[in-house]
């Protein structure tokens, strides 16, 4: 991984020195050792602090729409749009494509540094593992080799853990671990792609109706309406969200259970044809709500019903603004004629 970080720093330095970019969004060492911190770099010197490891899980595409949002500007004093480099795993890359497709970021202003991905470490799994091993979760240093992660505790103890079980569930189900369409791709190992056969959604959907409802209700009852899921999602960029408008006030403003359920159902629905299953929403949730079995449904259905997988091509129309004459309609109610 050290080599990957080195390559990113070198590439970033070159881009700044060549005057090709104004800004680079990447990762730096976080305060804790559990996750790397997103960082905005504006110079070759700043690029020295860039890092890459198995905790670079954030989807950095989330920062783009606001960088390119057109504010009202005085004539003659129009602000030039920034040229931005983004460090992107395969899922981030797909989010970038989704954003470009939706005109939230001009492709020509982006320099995408693609990083093939072995799957990122789930900090909750890591914490649980550490607690099991040492009784507490503190880690002062994290190092990694090909198949293992080694954590150091404040009192100097080293805990060696197998890497694969620590990988985020989303990554374990990832079908596209190698970014496609980047401007430069750093040489890095990637995980074998999953075949998409039996993920969280399918497992969930096999459960009985009432069991699914119970599970949904239980998960959502933890929600505190902090909107971290929405804010962390690259394709949730609306400046006015249905959950907060007051004319009309679609739902109440509080954490009342039906309001939060509707918030999540509709937010998930709004991701149809756009969700790349990066799991940013799940990671961001401070309450540990597992949205995957619900959120993943929309991606699965869009794929199965309309043959669309978001985040690859820029040309085809988004699935929900188009139709086919033979789109399925087996769900249409046919009343018994009297």
């Amino acid at each position, binding site marked *: 991984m050290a080599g990957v970080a080195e390559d990113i720093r070198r590439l970033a330095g070159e881009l700044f020195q060549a005057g090709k970019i104004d800004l680079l969004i990447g990762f730096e060492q976080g305060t804790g050792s559990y996750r790397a911190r997103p960082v905005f770099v504006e110079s070759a010197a700043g690029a020295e602090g860039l890092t890459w490891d198995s905790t670079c899980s954030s989807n950095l595409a989330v920062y783009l729409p606001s960088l390119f949002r057109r504010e009202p500007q005085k004539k003659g004093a129009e602000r030039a749009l920034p040229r931005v480099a983004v460090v992107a795993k395969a899922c981030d890359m797909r989010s970038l494509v989704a954003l470009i497709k939706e005109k939230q970021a001009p492709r020509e202003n982006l320099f995408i540094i693609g990083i093939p991905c072995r799957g990122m470490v789930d900090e909750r799994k890591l914490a649980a593992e550490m607690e099991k091993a040492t009784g507490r979760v503190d880690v002062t240093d994290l190092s990694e080799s090909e198949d293992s992660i080694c954590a150091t505790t404040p009192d100097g103890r080293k805990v060696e853990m197998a890497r694969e079980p620590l990988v985020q569930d989303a990554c374990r189900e990832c079908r596209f671990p190698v970014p496609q369409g980047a401007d430069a791709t750093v040489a890095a190992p990637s995980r074998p792609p999953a075949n998409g056969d039996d993920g969280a959604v399918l497992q*969930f*959907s096999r459960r009985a*109706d*009432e*069991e*699914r*409802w*119970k*599970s*949904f*209700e239980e998960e959502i009852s933890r929600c505190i309406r902090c909107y971290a899921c929405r804010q962390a999602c690259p394709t949730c960029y609306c400046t006015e969200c*249905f959950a907060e408008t007051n004319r009309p006030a*679609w*739902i*109440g403003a509080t954490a*009342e259970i*039906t*309001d939060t*359920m*509707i918030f999540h*159902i*509709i937010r*998930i*629905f709004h991701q*149809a044809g756009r969700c790349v299953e990066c799991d940013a929403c799940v990671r961001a949730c401070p309450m540990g709500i597992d949205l995957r079995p*619900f959120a993943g*449904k*929309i991606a699965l*259905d*869009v794929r199965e*019903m*309309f043959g669309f997988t978001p985040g690859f091509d820029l040309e085809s129309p988004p*699935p*929900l*603004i*188009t*139709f086919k*004459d033979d*789109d*399925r*309609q087996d*769900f*249409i*109610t*046919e*009343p*018994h*004629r*009297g």
Partner: protein
Amino acid sequence: MNEQGMSGGWQPRIVAFLCNWCSYAGADLAGVSRMQYPPSIRVIRVPCSGRINPLFIVSALQSGADGVLVSGCHPGDCHYLSGNLVARRKFALVKNLLAHVGIEPERVQFSWVSASEGARFASLVEKVTEDARKLGPQRKLAKVL
């Protein structure tokens, strides 16, 4: 909405979103033709089934509807050419997503009714009402203040 029907027992309450050009006219025809169908229904007229926002549907459920019916022109007959066909994709996803999280599929139903299908409309209301009656009051998304 009052939970008590005329007969005193619980009666399901159905919110129907009907497109202006076909389904609403179909409902009208059922009315002028004196066809019998349950009085459980509250109709909201929309310009086109393409106007249906899934929020309309879940809002109806949150407000206490026991069932929701959405109906537009038959494929090919849309007054705006393809509004119902684009909507069909949305409907398929909404139907699946709601069922996926455990809301009974019969609570939210989609159909096509043309302006000449008064009888189809009547039997559709009959079916949606009967389905809701079998399921009992909808409480999953209904807000209690």
